[in-house]
């Protein structure tokens, strides 16, 4: 049976609860437990092989490009964790069935829980670092969901976010660490990595790797200084805390440390960092736990403390310490899970978790109390309970180690202090809750919970005792086989699991711890007084504030960068052009190239002067918009003369036609815009803009000059040579447009068509205010359609149409073509609109311009498609000469049809724009409902 079945099974199990929610809670719980149970049995079925020393692996190729192979490995360490995860998981599911109130969506809860379980199990089974990381992050995510389960509560949300942020940050560091390891070793396969441990440790990036990995592990395991998220994660429902924050998620970090122990450990740096963090966490957690009034708060800090203890063990430079660490992992999971569940019962039955309100529950819930006390004593490290064993071994190891060189002697002292504290808070837990007077003012009258709710606790408590009494029998093999994975190269160091090792210093330390703890508890009040002088820093508050500050800072930065002013955007665009093009231009020694310059005559100088004056006048007069418009018309006119001057008649025609249409358009729009504006730019801005403009102008002029004074080789000769023979036209420009580069033209008319549609769209239901008088306050004349104008316009129309036909027909051989013809037609029709008005013209031209556009483009495209019938590529032109009687040799060309498409598009587009713009003030204005 493949190991992959385990996560797959669980993944399916994720969906089951939601599906079976309707069947009732018991059924749902039972079915939910099925997947973990089956998984557990699968794992168990592998257990004998593992105990026999085998390692079961299994893999599927996934993404070779990034070295991610789905690869599973079940070895001793994984087995230990798998048992913990699935075993305690099952108990928690069972427990949650009673814990959650009937209103709460148990299906969702179970779904999240199983998801988490899947992820956790995937971590321990992963044999590929990237795969492990994937699972690692999913634990963060699913724990986010679980912590935030009671999403209506602010503290849940904040706690969840904090946990996600901290573990997420750690996760990212971890990813970086893993990727580095992958880089160093060349693979992410953990087996190989373990084998090449020396390569890593000797690599120059080893410190970086180590720090990154440790950040990952420490955040997850709530090690100092990343411990602060854990207490706030207590906002989660208690089963979640029992599961995530005792047995599993926080242990993921520890697991990682254990997993990479053979790879990364063994260096000074490792011992220093790990033990320091562990020690600090151990003491800090234990100390703070003393002062927490919330039951879960106590447990949370105690968890932190114990995690610190385990980390410390892993950081001690004795081999046995790592073994002890594993042992304590087991023990801690067992007693802490049961304690959390017990706290949940107390909360559930009394309505509060505040130890200042709780007291004397012994009388109301003796069974619960008994079970709780078993676990709590285990936590305190009292003999006969499992906690004692690992704690005493821990004391022993602190004596053996030499991490801090000559300061190492302090470690046992600190360890003992920690022990004292943990005894004290455990005692407090027992004493304050179950004894010490009568309960008063509780929200609910306490009573025993349902017997089945206590079952998980009972099981765990029994386990505490059993392990505590028969450690070798209960846990020996498992510990041995799991510990052996930490020492792949060598055999396990010698150790013995037993209650009694004789009178020795560790025993003394234990005794000191217990006695000291009792004493401390009895005299706790002075300590409280001392402690409460300090303002208890609320990590949540600080964290939230920090986040808020971060957001505010980001917003401030954002607002400074982006003032939502187009002027800045455009200015930056131009500046970037300057910055990027100026340096190479500076490298250009001489702008002038080698071509001989052409001479200038007076006409050209005058035209150039007009052009420049017109351009500058437009810029200066832009506030008097009408005048500026006239000035820009001049520029357009001279530009088209320039085109004519430099042998481009087609361009001259097009430029002219386009310019006129544009100006008409601008006038139409100007009617709805302010005609004049006052100065609105600060002088500083004007100067700045002028400088930008001047530099850009200079750059463009320089480039232009540099280009046109240099000879070059071009592909154009081909067009000239093939225009007649290959394209069937003598106007090379037109042949390029409709044939050589007809595809461009097709795109171009598409643009025109879309623009027209878009403009129509813009005009639809436009809410416009119209000026009733011009900018001088003179009301508009009442002579809307001067008769003389009407008369002339209508006699001009046939002429204009004829001219446009002429221009169209000759386009292929002479200057002209569909586009210009289209514009001429449009202008002629626009002239009719101007003369007669929309009301008169619209019913007389019963044409849907939108369809004209569509047909125009379609015609052009279909002409292109037509060449497929002859097995030629799109837009392959066809032309031939026919000898028609009386007429003589006549040319027919597909390009003409293409050009007709262009013509139609231009007419349709221009009129769709202009005519509709004119309609705005009439009842023909575009609306959604029309047609």
């Amino acid at each position: 049976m493949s190991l992959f079945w385990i996560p797959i099974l669980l993944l399916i199990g994720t969906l089951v609860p939601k599906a079976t929610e309707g069947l009732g809670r018991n059924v749902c719980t039972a079915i939910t437990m099925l997947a973990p149970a089956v998984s557990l049995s699968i794992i168990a079925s592998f257990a004998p092989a593992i105990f026999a020393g085998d390692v079961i692996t299994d893999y599927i190729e996934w993404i070779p490009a990034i070295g991610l192979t789905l690869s599973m490995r079940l070895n001793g360490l994984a087995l230990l964790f798998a048992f913990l995860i699935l075993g305690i998981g099952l108990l928690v599911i069972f427990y949650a069935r009673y814990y959650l109130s009937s209103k709460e969506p148990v299906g969702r809860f179970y779904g999240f829980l199983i998801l988490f379980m899947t992820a956790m199990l995937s971590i321990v089974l992963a044999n590929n670092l990237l795969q492990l990381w994937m699972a690692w992050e999913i634990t963060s995510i699913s724990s986010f969901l679980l912590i935030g389960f009671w999403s209506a509560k602010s503290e849940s949300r904040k706690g969840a976010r904090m946990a996600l942020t901290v573990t997420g940050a750690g996760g990212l560091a971890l990813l970086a660490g893993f990727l580095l390891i992958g880089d160093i070793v060349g693979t992410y396969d953990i087996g190989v990595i373990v084998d090449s441990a020396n390569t890593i440790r000797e690599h120059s990036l080893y410190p970086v790797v180590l720090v990154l990995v440790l950040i990952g592990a420490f955040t997850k395991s709530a090690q100092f200084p990343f411990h602060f998220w854990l207490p706030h994660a207590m906002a989660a429902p208690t089963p979640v805390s029992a599961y995530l924050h005792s047995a599993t998620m926080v242990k993921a970090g520890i697991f990682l440390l254990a997993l990479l122990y053979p790879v990364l450990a063994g260096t000074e740096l490792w011992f220093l960092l790990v033990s320091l963090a562990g020690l600090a966490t151990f003491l800090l957690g234990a100390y703070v736990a003393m002062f927490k009034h919330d039951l879960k708060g106590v447990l949370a800090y105690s968890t932190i403390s114990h995690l610190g203890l385990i980390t410390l063990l892993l950081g001690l430079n004795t081999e046995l310490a790592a073994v002890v660490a594993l042992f304590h992992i087991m023990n801690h999971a067992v007693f802490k899970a049961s304690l959390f569940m017990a706290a949940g019962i107390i909360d559930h039955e009394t309505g509060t978790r505040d130890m200042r309100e709780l007291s004397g529950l012994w009388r109301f819930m003796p069974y619960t109390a008994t079970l709780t006390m078993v676990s709590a004593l285990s936590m305190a490290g009292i003999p006969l309970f499992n906690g004692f064993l690992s704690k005493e071994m821990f004391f022993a190891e602190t004596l053996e180690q030499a991490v801090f060189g000559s300061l190492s002697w302090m470690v046992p002292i600190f360890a003992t202090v920690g022990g004292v504290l943990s005894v004290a808070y455990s005692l407090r837990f027992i004493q304050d809750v179950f004894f010490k007077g009568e309960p008063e003012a509780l929200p609910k009258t306490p009573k025993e919970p349902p017997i089945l709710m206590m079952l998980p606790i009972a099981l765990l408590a029994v386990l505490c005792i059993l392990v505590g009494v028969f450690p070798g029998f209960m846990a020996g093999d498992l510990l041995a086989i799991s510990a052996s994975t930490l020492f792949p190269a060598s055999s396990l160091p010698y150790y013995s699991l037993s209650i009694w090792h004789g009178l020795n210093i560790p025993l003394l330390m234990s005794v000191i711890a217990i006695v000291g703890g009792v004493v401390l508890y009895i005299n706790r009040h002075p300590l409280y007084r001392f402690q409460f002088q300090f303002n208890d820093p609320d990590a949540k508050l600080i964290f939230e504030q920090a986040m808020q500050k971060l957001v505010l800072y980001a917003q401030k930065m954002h607002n400074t960068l982006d003032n939502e002013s187009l002027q800045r955007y455009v200015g930056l665009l131009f500046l970037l052009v300057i910055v990027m093009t100026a340096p190479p231009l500076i490298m250009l020694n001489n702008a002038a190239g080698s071509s001989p310059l052409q001479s200038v005559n007076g006409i050209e100088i005058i035209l150039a002067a007009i052009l420049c004056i017109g351009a500058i006048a437009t810029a200066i007069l832009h506030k008097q918009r009408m005048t500026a418009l006239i000035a820009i018309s001049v520029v357009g006119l001279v530009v088209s003369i320039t085109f004519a001057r430099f042998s481009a008649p087609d361009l001259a025609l097009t430029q002219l036609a386009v310019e006129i249409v544009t100006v008409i358009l601008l006038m139409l729009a100007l009617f709805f815009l302010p005609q004049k504006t006052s100065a609105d730019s600060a002088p500083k801005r004007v100067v700045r803009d002028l400088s930008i403009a001047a530099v850009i102008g200079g750059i463009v002029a320089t480039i232009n000059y540099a280009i046109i004074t240099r000879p070059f080789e071009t592909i154009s000769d081909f067009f000239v040579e093939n225009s007649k023979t290959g394209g069937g036209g003598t106007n090379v420009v037109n042949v390029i447009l409709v044939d050589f580069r007809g595809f461009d033209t097709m795109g171009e008319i598409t643009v025109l068509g879309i623009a027209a549609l878009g403009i129509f769209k813009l005009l639809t239901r436009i809410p416009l205010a119209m000026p009733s008088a011009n900018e001088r306050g003179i009301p508009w004349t009442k002579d809307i359609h001067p008769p003389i104008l009407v008369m002339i316009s209508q006699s001009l129309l046939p002429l204009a149409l004829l001219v446009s036909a002429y221009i169209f027909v000759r386009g292929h051989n002479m200057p002209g073509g569909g586009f210009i013809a289209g514009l001429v037609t449009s202008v002629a029709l626009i002239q009719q609109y101007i003369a007669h008005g929309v009301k008169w013209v619209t019913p007389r031209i019963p044409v849907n311009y939108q369809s004209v556009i569509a047909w125009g483009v379609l015609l052009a495209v279909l002409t292109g498609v037509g060449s497929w019938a002859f097995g030629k590529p799109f837009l392959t032109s066809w032309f031939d000469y026919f000898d028609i009687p009386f007429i003589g040799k006549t040319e027919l060309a597909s390009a003409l049809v293409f050009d007709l498409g262009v013509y139609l598009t231009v007419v349709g587009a221009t009129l769709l724009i202009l005519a509709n713009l004119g309609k705005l003030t009439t009842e023909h204005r575009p609306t959604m409902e029309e047609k």
Partner: protein
Amino acid sequence: MMDHLPILPILVPLIGGLLLLLPPFAGIERYVNRRVAAAFLCLLQIAISIALMAKVIDAGPIMYAVGNWQAPFGIILYADSLAALLVFLTGFLGLASTLYSFAGTDREGRYFHPVMQFQLMGITGAFLTHDLFNLFVFFEVLLIASYVLLVHGGGKQRTQANVHYVILNLVGSAIFLIALGTLYGTTGTLNIADMSLKISTLSGGEQVLAKVGGMMLLVVFGLKAAMLPLHFWLPNTYSAASAPVAALFAIMTKVGIYSIFRVFTVIFGDEAGALSNMVLPWIWPLAILTVIVGTIGVLASPNLRNIAANTVLISVGTLLMAFAIRGPEASAAAFYYALHSTLISAVLFMLADMIGQQRGKAFDRFVIAKKVTQPALLGALFFVAAMVVVGLPPFSGFIGKVVILQSAASGLDKALVWSTILISTLLTIIALARAGTTLFWRHAGDSSNSENESASVWQVVGVTLLLVASPVMAIFAGPITEYTATAATQLHDVRLPVSVLQLQGGSQ
């Protein structure tokens, strides 16, 4: 028909879009016809692009000489693995957006579906063409279509955003033409492959001019791609657009990125002599800054659409970084990441819309508001989307991120790229956690009132289509990365288009 495969992705949406303007598809009450036709067109487009990919995988890059004029004289379409992939992506995104719009967006104004098709045409054209001026034309097609789509639905915010967007892009187009002119004026050709041959033979002043032209091209493409400091238009524009439009826009920045990859790999790539990789010193800092600014934007965002828009920025920066790292491996990583980031950005825009619809006046702003009507559905969708976008496993984002991170080879690159991307990821997580908890977990009162409509089936279909792509991309990451690796190899082999296009003088 198979011979004409490379041009079909351009012609199908074009002809389709035109037909949609004519009876029996035109007219306000015939929207059902339009919808059916539009969906059909998108499916056809996808089918074609799959066929194209299959052919390209089979036979290597193919070219299509429009008008039967050979390179470098005619316009050549050049479909290599990269282009085919992006065409497919475009079609897929188009389908999802179209389906999503059936929920009602398409009826909020005229011409939605036709212009959508034109938009697709412009984008695919830009991906397929191998001619600089034709690229300009297709840029304009896609731009004008995007202008029109952006105002779809009306409203102050859209108009305002459009003003900025249009003006900036018009200036951009002007610069594009100057750049084109400069390059034509020095090399005498417009074909990209041909230009790559000519560029290495330039010397003296011509070389400098070509460099200037190239730099201007970078500015233009940077503007389309929203590279810093030309990114300002993006957040406002994208968050103003209606959801399906914004979703489709997710690919628009990729057009800019694609052009950068194409032009600065083929023309100004390793074989451009003195001009080799001249833009790298610029792209490095700008890419990193783009990510940083995008991240700041994500943190500062007041609503979900803004976050989505800023994640687009981050992805742009990331892709540019991948470009700056250079080499086929980085390019391959970039292509995978581009696929992923495009899809997920689209999802976020759609989700923001769906969530907003159910939150009353607050829409998708991060304030206390009504509870959404369908918390489970939207919550689940959002949650997955958020995981994908920040790059958490097991979705495509994780793989996308890892491939990019892995591709940074040298020490300094690595430090820069890694720290930028990872820190940005963390901050994005923070922002999205904040967003999610506010949108779904903090609410005033219940959603019991009837005015809140629940999400339309079409919306769910559209979003799901895109969202499912992420796990699919993750599951089939093996073959996909293999494909992108091929695409990258083809892109970096500058001689390949020269030989495919049968250009003369490829040897010296």
